[in-house]
């Protein structure tokens, strides 16, 4: 099959203009600000929805977004990748046990923030870890996301039973000290996370792009969220984290995220470079 390059060399540029208009429309219409998200990510998600809904171009999509809130809500799910796991990256949790917990044990009480918590798996994983390390009783956990649908799932803490095999394996690799099955109640096709773990967690709406500081935190976990932002927005959100942390507070990023390429890197010192654990300089 012969494919000739498009006569119009400006396809990429023109696509960009249309996509910027779509993002502007979403912002004006619904207040969600995706204008500084990583462009390659946004384009792929829009293309995905475009082909599923059999539309020809981004402007047709913009029209539908503006006039059909239901369609927008669907698109919102596309744009906010909710993929997550319990004890995702077991090595990271191991490192938290080894290099973070000893510090946290010295504080009389703790405030912990999971920013971009998705359906709660990461939050419950950390609650289990803190329970096993005996610091959960002095801890208040805040878990936030900008997607209400996913937040209500997080509050429920109900997960398909077939995921438990992988989660159990992760838990064990992460240095889990008990029987993982002790942390949930299994029904025939799903499991329900123990009420005792939920009591320490406040799940609430917070948009990292448009909302402000979340104060006096000892630890902030923000894993696999910043990769969806462009460098400028990453910098802004990292400053928000800096301002939300107490001096000497900890910031934990995703395994493939780092401060290396950010102007905020001088504000933090590394605790574990390989596991992306940082500490706010005093």
């Amino acid at each position, binding site marked *: 099959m012969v494919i000739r390059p498009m006569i119009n*060399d400006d396809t*990429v540029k023109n*696509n960009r203009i249309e996509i910027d208009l779509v993002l502007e429309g979403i912002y004006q219409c619904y207040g969600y600000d995706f204008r500084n998200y990583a*462009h390659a*990510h946004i384009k*792929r998600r829009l293309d995905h929805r475009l082909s599923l809904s059999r539309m020809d171009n981004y402007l047709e999509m913009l029209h539908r977004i503006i006039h059909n809130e239901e369609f927008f809500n669907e698109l919102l799910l596309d744009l906010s*990748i909710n*993929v997550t796991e319990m004890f995702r990256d077991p090595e990271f949790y191991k490192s938290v046990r080894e290099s973070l917990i000893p510090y946290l044990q010295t504080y009389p009480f703790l405030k912990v923030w999971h920013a971009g918590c998705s359906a709660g798996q990461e939050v419950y994983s950390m609650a289990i870890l803190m329970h096993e390390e005996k610091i959960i009783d002095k801890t208040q956990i805040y878990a936030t996301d900008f997607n209400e649908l996913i937040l209500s799932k997080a509050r429920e803490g109900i997960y398909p039973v077939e995921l438990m095999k992988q989660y159990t394996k992760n838990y064990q690799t992460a240095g889990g000290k008990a029987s993982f099955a002790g942390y949930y109640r299994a029904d025939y096709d799903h499991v329900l996370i123990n009420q005792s773990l939920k009591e320490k967690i406040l799940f609430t709406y917070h948009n990292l792009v448009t909302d402000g500081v979340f104060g006096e935190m000892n630890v902030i976990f923000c894993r696999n969220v910043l990769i969806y932002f462009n460098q400028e927005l*990453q910098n802004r959100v990292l400053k928000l984290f800096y301002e939300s942390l107490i001096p000497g507070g900890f910031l934990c990023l995703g395994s493939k995220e780092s401060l*290396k390429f950010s102007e905020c890197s001088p504000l933090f010192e590394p605790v574990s470079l390989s596991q992306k654990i940082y500490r706010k300089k005093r």
Partner: protein
Amino acid sequence: MSSNFKAIVIGTSTGGLSALPAVLSPLMEDFPLTILIVQHLSAHSDDFMVRHLRKFCDLEVLGAEDKMDTRAGCIYIAPPNYHLMVEEEGTLALSISPPVHFSRPSIDVLFETAADAWQEQLIGIILTGANSDGTSGVKKIKERGGHVLVQDIATAEAETMPASASEFADMILPLDQIGNYLNNLVQNKTS
């Protein structure tokens, strides 16, 4: 065909562990293009690929990280369990959006974003592999005016991937000729 290439994207699955060294080791020391690679691997593998390929290359081999700049003469490997994308300015971006063709990283995801970033200055290469990831990617590279190279299935450990992509190939080559072909391509670029 453009005579001014900037980057190469390579995709492979089954058989890639031996096919990649065969392609990369002949490349000359001052090879002037950026090279990005997706090799399908288990989600739980570590930076094994980076260490593996370092043994065979004169060029610098790095694990791709989010917001990393791409440099000429440097090889970037997609990390296990993340999609690797290229922004239009040529910086790298990662994502954990759902697998494509059961794969994360997916070859299509890298190739389609690289096609937008480098357009006619991009070379896409499909090597041995056992599924059809990469075919939409090379199609997009053709649409943007880039150059597509596919491994001759007679030399491929697994045929499905190169067979499926060959429909869009400008050039089909046996494995042991690809490295030298690339050397010649970039040396002749001003002629």
